[in-house]
């Protein structure tokens, strides 16, 4: 096991496209780091650079303190799980798992022992003699993980491993991966565009956008204290509401005609800002100061989503079914102080605490 340190990592493709623009962070030994971001944000490229499948244009990548920029993928002591599993179609499950060990001249009885062990952990023992073709998606995914486990690598790399599975299986495998990590305690890096996967699996989330890191933190930090408008809208579903406003003075923000008390940090009066709050944090009450003209309602079961406009801006509220009528056309609500997030409208960065 080992920590992974990335220092000023950049990737420029021939032709000048800069996919990764200077990334710095460190994953502690045994940590579970999730790289999350929209497609094309460079998260997969970054993972592939750590794996050694892409060259690193600039910067340093260290695994367990060892600089691995020029090290072959096979010698980095990593194992990777691919989105499409990448199982060898002509080999049995057993041979798929044993292949990497054989290439490393592991003794045959040691291979048997390790494959049996991994098969037991993943509950794929009945399939060891089958070809991947005869397995379901979830089983293939397990074999792919088994192939990674038998190697006993220092780092696991997961490249969107669950996105080919159906929704139910995905939830199931997510739990399995979490369990696996809890029992094996191997440093893991996991790429996904699914924020639920990111929130549930990670000790450490790295939110990426356009080749840069937007925010690094625990799932709770990223959710409850987004550092930028991008993170605020990317993490959390339904997305955070953002209302345009102007700083009126220290601790005061003007939204239309209403003045709200918010921590404005050091922002000068007149700064254009966006005030954010999560749809489920608004408190519905008959006496609420804000009024939402509801245009349509989405029924989710445990809660409802009320889509509408507030002073001409799109706003969504989430409330349990007992809190308001499903056919309500007007909802009054308050935003508690602790639920408010203030962002600089030009830089997109967070203002205040």
């Amino acid at each position: 096991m080992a920590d992974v340190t990335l220092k000023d990592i950049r990737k420029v493709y021939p032709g000048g496209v800069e996919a990764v623009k200077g990334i710095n962070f460190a994953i502690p030994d045994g940590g579970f780091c999730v790289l999350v971001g929209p497609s094309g944000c460079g998260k997969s490229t970054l993972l592939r650079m750590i794996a050694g499948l892409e060259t690193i244009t600039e910067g340093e990548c260290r695994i367990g303190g060892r600089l691995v920029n020029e090290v072959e993928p096979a010698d980095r002591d990593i194992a990777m799980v691919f989105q499409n599993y990448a199982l060898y179609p002509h080999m049995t499950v057993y041979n798929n798992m044993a292949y990497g060990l054989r290439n490393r001249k592991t003794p045959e009885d040691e291979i048997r022992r390790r494959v049996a062990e991994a098969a037991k952990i993943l509950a794929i023992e009945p399939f060891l003699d089958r070809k991947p073709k005869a397995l379901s998606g979830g089983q293939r995914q397990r074999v792919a993980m088994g192939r990674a486990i038998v190697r006993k690598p220092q780092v696991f790399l997961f490249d969107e491993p669950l996105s080919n599975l159906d929704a139910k299986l995905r939830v199931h495998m997510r739990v399995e991966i979490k369990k696996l990590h809890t029992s094996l305690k191997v440093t893991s890096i996991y790429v996904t565009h699914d924020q639920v996967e990111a929130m549930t699996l990670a000790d450490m989330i790295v939110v990426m956008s356009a080749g840069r890191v937007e925010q690094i933190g625990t799932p709770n930090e990223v959710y409850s204290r987004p550092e930028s408008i991008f993170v605020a809208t990317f993490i959390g579903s339904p997305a955070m509401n953002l209302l345009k406003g102007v700083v009126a003075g220290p601790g005061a923000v003007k939204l239309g005609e209403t003045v709200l008390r918010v921590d404005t940090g050091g922002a000068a009066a007149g700064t254009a800002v966006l005030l954010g709050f999560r749809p489920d944090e608004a408190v519905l009450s008959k006496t609420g100061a804000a009024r939402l003209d509801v245009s349509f309602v989405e029924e989710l079961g445990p809660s409802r989503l009320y889509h509408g406009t507030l002073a001409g801006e799109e706003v969504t509220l989430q409330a349990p079914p007992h809190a308001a009528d499903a056919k309500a056309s007007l909802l009054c609500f308050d935003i508690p102080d602790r639920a408010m997030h203030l962002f600089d409208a030009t830089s997109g960065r967070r203002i205040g605490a």
Partner: protein
Amino acid sequence: MVERRSFITVILPHIILIVGVAIVFFPVYLAFVASTWDPATIVNGQLGLMPGPYLIENYQRILFTGTSSSTREPVASMMFNSLIMALMIAIGKIIISIFSAFAIVYYRFPFRMTLFWIIFITLMLPVEVRIFPTYKIVADLGMLDSYTGLTIPLIASATGTLLFRQFFMTVPDELLEASKIDAAGPLQFFRDTLLPLSMTTIAALFVIQFIYGWNQYLWPLLITTKDSMQTIVIGIRKMITTQDALTEWQLAMATAMLALLPPVAVVISMQKLFVKGLVETEK
């Protein structure tokens, strides 16, 4: 089944297919019938639709003795020559084209695409077009009347390279990457992963190229002068055009029947793999 199963939909396709098979099969049957009679019956035009009594005699004579007038070689040795030639061409083509496709798809080297296009362009230059320069080179190298001279000029194959290239492009990149992480070098990836996956493509190419090699006419005609190097296709032609003796039709037909056997055997034995190789898309 989309259509309703009625008399017409069941019987009509069968009738069409039976007629088609009959059209193709009848001349072959006639050749077989001719190969079982004596020359007098054939020349007198008394050949019926039933096989005659000379089956074993004719085949024995042609296989091990040869005709009396035109060729002195028995057909067994011609078949052996044809077999060697067809096998060398098929296997040689597969080996050369699988490696060149591997290089073109998996390696990044200068002028990769240029080389690919040069190979591609040779599709427009079959043996018939470049026959004189090729003959000159083979003659200068002293390869006339030899198996190498018969086969090497026909081995280079753009078709095979293209077929393998198209197949390799459908193999997911992740397999290569997984191999890299599993500590397999490039040639090990080729041997352990690519080659087993290519088996059906190899089979398809083998069938096509074996028949191509077996049916070669112009090139062996030019390059072989000795009777001992003759291929069966040349042999048949020599039997039919005789100068002053009667054509021994029963022997020519028997030879033709024998010439049919190896390609048919190859197609039948590899049919499953062959069809799979040409249509399979799932990897």
